């Protein structure tokens, strides 16, 4: 009996010591663990496409402006979109036309880059659905006639505007975004697009589509690029 109670006492003492050790150990390790908890900034990022601003300043036949933004919904995934306006005059040997209009692109970006520490750089694939409302003006054209040496070329300068044109497309994007200063990002991206639908002007075609870019005779595909500067407005921090 005595032995039994002594054993009980001993066990409970050891148990108590272990618990105390445990508690002690926990107290000791709290700051240690905390330094390895990585909290990522979540927020809304706003930006502009610098390439469009640069081209507006340098090219006489182009003007454009684009605002872009994204909102982080998980460690890897962002809801992203762009809204912009473009005016572009396309000139070939026989044809001179101007497209003018607005566009909206909505989609998401998926970050493939594994960041060290609390860094938030992006190497991403993006997907967008884009729509554009625009008009095209046929400024002037020269009749395509390889036998025109006899009577001379005929030029027709009777501007005609085709309004109410619209196009929808899907877009795959690949790009980088790097945080160069706190919350300030610069990025580049390449865009591959494919038109889903479009209204074609009568006896003409869509030469340039704001947001989509120039069209190609070979099909419904298009390409583009962006050079963005954006600022992150942090809303909260979260562990991954």
């Amino acid at each position, binding site marked *: 009996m005595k032995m039994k109670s002594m054993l009980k006492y001993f066990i409970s003492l050891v148990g108590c010591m272990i618990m105390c050790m445990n508690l002690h150990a926990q107290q000791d390790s709290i700051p240690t663990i905390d330094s390895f908890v990585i909290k990522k900034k979540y927020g809304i990022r706003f930006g502009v496409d610098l390439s469009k601003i640069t081209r507006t300043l340098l090219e006489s036949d182009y003007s454009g402006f684009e605002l872009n933004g994204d909102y982080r919904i998980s460690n890897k995934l962002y809801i992203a979109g762009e809204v912009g306006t473009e005016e572009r005059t396309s000139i*070939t040997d*026989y*044809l001179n036309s101007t497209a003018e209009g607005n566009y909206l692109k909505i989609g998401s970006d998926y970050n493939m880059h594994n960041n060290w520490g609390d860094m938030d750089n992006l190497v991403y694939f993006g997907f967008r659905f884009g729509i554009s409302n625009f008009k095209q003006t046929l400024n002037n054209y020269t*009749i395509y006639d390889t036998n025109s040496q*006899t*009577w001379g070329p005929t030029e*027709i300068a009777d501007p005609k505007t085709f309004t109410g044109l619209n196009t929808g497309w899907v877009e795959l994007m690949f790009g980088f975004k790097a945080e160069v200063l706190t919350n300030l990002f610069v990025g580049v991206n390449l865009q*591959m697009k494919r038109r889903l639908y479009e209204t074609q002007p009568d006896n003409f075609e869509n030469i340039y589509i704001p947001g989509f870019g120039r069209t190609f*005779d070979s099909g419904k595909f298009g390409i583009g690029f962006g050079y963005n500067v954006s600022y992150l407005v942090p809303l909260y921090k979260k562990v991954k």
Partner: protein
Amino acid sequence: MKQFLCLFLIVIFSCEKDDICADTVQTTPRLVIEFYDLTAPDNVLAVAGLFARGLDSGNAEGVPINNEVVFTRSKISLPLKTDGSNETEFILFKNYDVVDGVESGNRDTIKITYNTENVYVSRACGYKTNFEILTFSITEDSDQWMRNSDIIIYNITNENEIHVKIFH
């Protein structure tokens, strides 16, 4: 990623040709005339020393037609004006010859009136003109070698077929 960039560059550079109008693209068609035997209207009859010039108002000598040379043949292609005047005249010579700067041969005049329609081709080539023949006439003179004509195809959209038959 490398493949993606490659694909991107291929797309950029392979499509530049879209901006250059290739010679093979169907251009504004010329009027195609074929000559037939007046006495046997189903038979093609070549014209000896056939030559043509454009005829512009106030220029009796005529306007040289590009690539037009004298030679005996049964078919000729003539460029119509696309400037909105909607009529073109040509001088057609039979037995044309030039000796010491003096022209010889039988000279007749034809006149075509038409409507035009400019049809979109492509961004590189722009628009070409198609024609709808309204009238085709041979100006009468004392020694007319072209006696009669027949419009076969009124809408000129290509040069693959004969638009007008002339009997001589």
